[in-house]
Structures are given as structure tokens and as C-alpha cells.
């Protein structure tokens, strides 16, 4: 495996409703990441992006994004209809596959303000048997939360602790959206959105974007970059979608991806977990066997800011940032997709 490192990232503050268009958001984060990397815009060997057309109800959102990134002369470019974390995986593999390629930029964008996201996500389900019933994404997550409570290992208080802790940590993240000092009692007395999920256990609706730059060892040396976050393990796995055929109280795909990426949960300094719903963090902590010394979601995680199609790559940006700033030697970024943690990705990074 070739040595590839995250050397720069950029994001814009998540907001309930951004005044920026998708194109303007992309322009800001791509320009920001390129400037931080010190690489000339025309020197990028590969560009890859992640977004989802159904959010804004029009096809080809990524086509307009090309206007924002300066794709002239023509660029080597691809797009996944997924969270940007998977675009990063594609870019990382592209650099693995061709020793002649040395740097890539990955970006993603998503606006939850353009439509009713929980209902739109119902169109991810089986189109013949499930979508016609329009089970919204919060109700699907609530089925998982209920299964977790029924399993007896956790109580609602555990959900509340996760939510309160993430919002508290998010206070130090200038890009977070929903932060503050809430009490456990406050969280546990909030209104139900879909029982047993109360308002505090659900993520905010966010508009946002981020971009990330990866480079080969040769490029890192050439740039003289001081604190690269070397990607030491990278894997993603999917499960069957139907809620009836898998154990909703565990995450087999996270566990497998974590093992294949060499996560070793007790050796991490920081783990950024993409858990949009509070109970999902509990499932992910178990799947990755995180030790007590691991700092989980110092950014506040998806409970503090959840730009759709972005929140996964944001976790990797935040984990890499901890290494760039010298706050962590070994950090993990996780992304999820699909109903009730169906698909999961793990990226393990280390300092020099």
C-alpha cells in the first residue's frame, strides 16, 4: 500500500439554511483547501466529489459544481452519489492504482434546507414494498433505538448522555451548528420526534460543504508539509438494507471495516464517529471496541452539525485536523450511509 496523507481540509460553518447556493459553498471549501495545501489548482491529478441529487430534486447537482472548481483546462474527475467520505475512498484508491498520480482533492456538499430530508430519505428504501409506505428516516432510526433499549444493555439515559456530551463538545467547534450546555434532565424531558427518540437525540438539519486534499509521500516531501495525517487503513462495508434481516443493535459492517482498516480501538487518541442519532454512537463505540481513553467526537459530531452527504467526510477532516494540530498521534474518521447504519466506512490516520 502506497503512503498517502491528508494534508489539508476546509469546511464552512453548518447552518440550518445557508444563504449560499451549492455552487458557492463548493467554491469556498475547494478554494480554501487548495490554498491550505499549497498545491497549484492545475496540478491536481484527480478530483472526486460526493453529493445526492434527490436532496434538491434535480438531476446533476455535481455538474453545476464544476463551474465552482475551475475545471479548465479539463480535469480528471469523478463523482459518487454518496457521502464525500466514499469520494475520498475512490480518490485514495486512484492514487493507490497509479504511481504517476500524486495529489487529489475531494469535495462534497449538501443542503438539508431544500426539501423535507426525513421524507426524501424514505426513497432510499425498497421502491416496491417499503418506500410506498413512506417510513421517514427518523422513524427508521427510532425502530433501531427501540431495539437497543429492548436489548437491555442501554437505557434512555445513555442516549441523553451522548447527546449532551456532543453538544457540549461542539461549543469549541466554530463550524458546529447546534451546541450548548444542556442537562441530562432537559434532554430526557424533551418532546418525542418518534418514540423513543426525543428531540435532543436527533441531529440538526444542516447545510454545509467540505473539501480535503490528499497527497503521496513524494508530494508531501516536496511541499515540506510538517504534520501530514497518513492514511494507514481505509475500508468500507455494506449490510443488507431490510431492517428485518440484520441485528439493529450492532453494526457488523462497522466492525468489519474497522478490523480491516486496523482500527485497534484501544490505540486511538481521537475517534470521530458519524452517528446522526445519539443511540448510534453507542452501537459504533461497541463495533469499534473503543477504549475509555479515546476522545470521541471532540468536534461535537453529527449531533452538533449534520450536513447531509458531508457529515461523513467532515469526520475524517476533523480526525485529520487533530493530527495536523498535533493533538493526536492516531485518529479514526467514520462515515455512515443508508437507513439504521446500513453502510459504514472507517479511515485510520497516523502522525509522522
Amino acid at each position, binding site marked *: *500500500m*502506497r503512503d498517502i496523507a491528508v494534508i489539508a481540509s476546509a469546511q464552512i460553518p453548518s447552518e440550518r439554511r445557508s444563504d449560499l*447556493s451549492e455552487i458557492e459553498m463548493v467554491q469556498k471549501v475547494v478554494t480554501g483547501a487548495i490554498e491550505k495545501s499549497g498545491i497549484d489548482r492545475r496540478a491536481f491529478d484527480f*478530483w472526486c466529489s460526493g453529493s*445526492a*441529487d*434527490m436532496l434538491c*430534486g*434535480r*438531476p*446533476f447537482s*455535481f*455538474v*453545476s459544481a*464544476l*463551474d465552482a472548481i475551475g*475545471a*479548465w*483546462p*479539463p*480535469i*480528471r*474527475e*469523478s*463523482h*459518487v*452519489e*454518496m457521502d464525500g467520505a*466514499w469520494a475520498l*475512498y*475512490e480518490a485514495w*484508491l486512484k492514487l*493507490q*492504482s*497509479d*504511481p504517476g498520480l500524486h495529489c487529489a482533492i475531494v469535495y462534497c456538499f449538501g443542503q438539508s434546507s431544500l426539501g423535507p430530508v426525513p421524507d*426524501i*430519505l424514505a*426513497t*432510499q*428504501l*425498497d*421502491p*416496491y414494498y417499503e*418506500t410506498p409506505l413512506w417510513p421517514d428516516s427518523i422513524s427508521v432510526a427510532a425502530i433501531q433505538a427501540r431495539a437497543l433499549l429492548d436489548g437491555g444493555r442501554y437505557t434512555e439515559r445513555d442516549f441523553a448522555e451522548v447527546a449532551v456530551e456532543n453538544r457540549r463538545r461542539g461549543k469549541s467547534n466554530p463550524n458546529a451548528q447546534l451546541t450548548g450546555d444542556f442537562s441530562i434532565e432537559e434532554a430526557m424531558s424533551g418532546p418525542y420526534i418518534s418514540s423513543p427518540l426525543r428531540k435532543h437525540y436527533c441531529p440538526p438539519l444542516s447545510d454545509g460543504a467540505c473539501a480535503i486534499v490528499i497527497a503521496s509521500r513524494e508530494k508531501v516531501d516536496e511541499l515540506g508539509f510538517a504534520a501530514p495525517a497518513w492514511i494507514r487503513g481505509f*475500508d*468500507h*462495508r*455494506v*449490510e*443488507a*438494507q431490510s431492517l428485518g*434481516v440484520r441485528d439493529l443493535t450492532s453494526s*457488523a459492517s462497522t466492525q*468489519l471495516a474497522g478490523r480491516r482498516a486496523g482500527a485497534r480501538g484501544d490505540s486511538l487518541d481521537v475517534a470521530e464517529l458519524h452517528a446522526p442519532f445519539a443511540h448510534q454512537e453507542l452501537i459504533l463505540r461497541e463495533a469499534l471496541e473503543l477504549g475509555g481513553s479515546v476522545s470521541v467526537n471532540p468536534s461535537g459530531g453529527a449531533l452538533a452539525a449534520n450536513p447531509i452527504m458531508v457529515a461523513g467526510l467532515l469526520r475524517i477532516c476533523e480526525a485529520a485536523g487533530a493530527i495536523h494540530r498535533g493533538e493526536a498521534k492516531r485518529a479514526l474518521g467514520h462515515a455512515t*450511509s*443508508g*437507513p439504521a447504519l*446500513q*453502510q459504514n466506512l472507517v479511515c485510520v490516520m497516523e502522525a509522522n
Partner: protein
Amino acid sequence: MAELCAVIGVGQTKHAAIRGDVSIPGLLREAAFRALEDAGITFADIDAVILGTAPDQFEGIMMPELFLADALGAVGKPILRVHTAGSVGGSTANVAASYIESGLYDRVLTLAFEKQSESNAMWALSPKYPFQPPITSGAGGYFAPLIRAYMRASGAPDHIGCKVAYKDRVHALKNPYAHLHIEDISIEKVKASPMLWEPVRYLESCPSSDGCAALVLAREEVADRHSGPKAWVWATEMRSEPMQFAGRNQVLPQAGSDCAKSLYKKAGITNPQAEIDVAEIYVPFSWFEPMWLENLHLCEPGEGWKLTDNDETTFGGRLPVNPSGGVLSTNPIGASGMIRYAEGALQVRGMAGDRQVDGAKVALGHAYGGGSQFFSMWIVGSDKPS
């Protein structure tokens, strides 16, 4: 490349306007099983699945790879979903090839599909964009002015489009998987068909199809152990450029030209006109055959239409183009690019049946999308790249 990649299995559905006999998972499994059977393996041998399809608006299913994961045998494996507009079938195969070329995967299954009978492409392609002029003309209306510009610049005579349409439909009669089998096709019949978008007639346009293509790709060491014929991937390439800006050449886009040049260089091809034996090119409207021949440097500038006119792009000609019948005979949008790639692989494997080009050793697969702005290509050969 860190690792060589070979195509060891090819499968496609019987394409049709309405495949009402199968669901979407059923359609994909028809192609997948054919590809796996061709490769002599099962889902259990596959390490990753790469899926491509055009906008989610078409079928109204958001990120369909999620609900398709178990139907495609992907449970416990990586699944990735590519979407690069009309070029997606090609770029999906390119991404799948990079999984193999990275050295991290032994065998990858890649598929691309569209089930147009369960979707509404015209509706999905005609939304109102804020701050942009509406393009409510559909794809044909978008591309017709580019064709007129080509005719004017090249001096091509009016009948070239009809000739391409006739030729590809004759080719399709040799392809049992093709959607359109127009037994009584003739130049006169094409000419007599209704004019849709001047100069594009009804029979010069692609159909609307249900269909899926699937490929099994393998790492060199694994492919070497495989007994069947292989198509070795000599090179893959992609290029994109913005849709609209002053001075952009939309007829012969620089992205397409750059992509082809880089592709040939990577493949070690110095004279594409002489070294490529067969080309499967994305031609959704007849006139795009001569246009892409020029953009792909498969003829001299301005000469594309002469190749078509002199019967050089059919069996026995200098460069048979779309022996499968092409997009003009089969168009499940998201799959159309991968069908080009798959047909090229079949040709160099000597497995193209009645549509086999004699002695084909090197094939070009090509796809494009958006406003002629996204390009994906690959070169496959009977032998390993030298």
C-alpha cells in the same frame, strides 16, 4: 498501474423498452449472473461491487445501491455508487478497474443499469434551475444545434446522419441483446421518419430502454489462472469540463480530445487510426459518429463524415464502429457506457458472436455525458499491454 486488470466475465440483459417481467433487482441479477457464469465464479468470489446509474430522479430511488446491496451479493463487502451523468457506465468500469489496479482487490463485479420503463427521463431532465436558463428541450434539442454546427464547419452532406442510423440498426440485427431489431430498416425508412430536432429524425435517435450490463474484473495473477479468454485493460481515462462558458467548443470538446490523447499515451498507442481494430462509441444521435471520430483522433480533422460515407465504419471497413448496434439500438441510459465497454471486451475476447469483427485485438470503449462535457474511455486488448 500497480496491478494489471483483466475482464474475465461479461454479461448483459436482453434490452427492451419494457422489461416488465423483472423488477430492478431482477434486471441487475440477469446481467450479473451472466457475467459471473462467463467468469466461472459466483457472488462468493467477488470482493467488491461497483454500481453505476444515471440520476436518481430517473427511477425516483435515492442511492439505489443501498436497497440493491443484498441482491448483488454485496453484503459484508464494499459497494460504491458512481454517477457522472451519461458517461457513468464508462466511468463506473474505470472506477472498478482502479479497485483492481490498486492491488487491494482480486475480483470486482461492476454493473450499470437503467430501467426507463419505471422512470421518466424527460421529466427528470427538465427541472427549473434557479439562476439558469431552462433547457426544456430534452437531450435531442440540446445536441441538435451542435450537430448543425458540425455540418456547417465540416461541409458534411445531409445524408450522413441517415447512413449512421441505418448502419447501426443493421448491426443490431446481429446482436441478440439489442433493444431495436428493425428488420426492414433502410436509408429511405430513416429519411421518411419524422423530423424531431432539425436535423435529427426519429430514427436517428436512440430508443428508451430497460437494461443492465455487468463485468467481472480480476487482478493479473487471478486472471492468469482463469481458463477463458480475457480482455486486458491497457488504459482507462476520464476528463470533465464545465458545461457553459464563452468560447467553449461544444462540438469537439477539449475534454474529449485530451481524454483520448492521454488514453492512447497510457496504452502505448502511437497511431490510433492504425492500431485500434474496433470502436464502441457513445452515439445517441446519428451525427455523433463522425463528430466523435474526429474528437477521438480516429481520423483527420473534418474527415469523420467521410469514413462514415465510405463505409469504413461497418464490417470490412477500416474501423468498424458499434458492431453491436450502439446506443442508437439500445439505450438504458446509465448502462449505455458500460455496454460500450462490454462490447469492446467481447470483441477482443473473440466472443461477440455474429457481430464479431474478424481479428479484433484492440478495442476502444467510449462514453460521454452532460452537455458533451464528461468523458470516460478505455482500451482493452487480447494480449497483456506491452
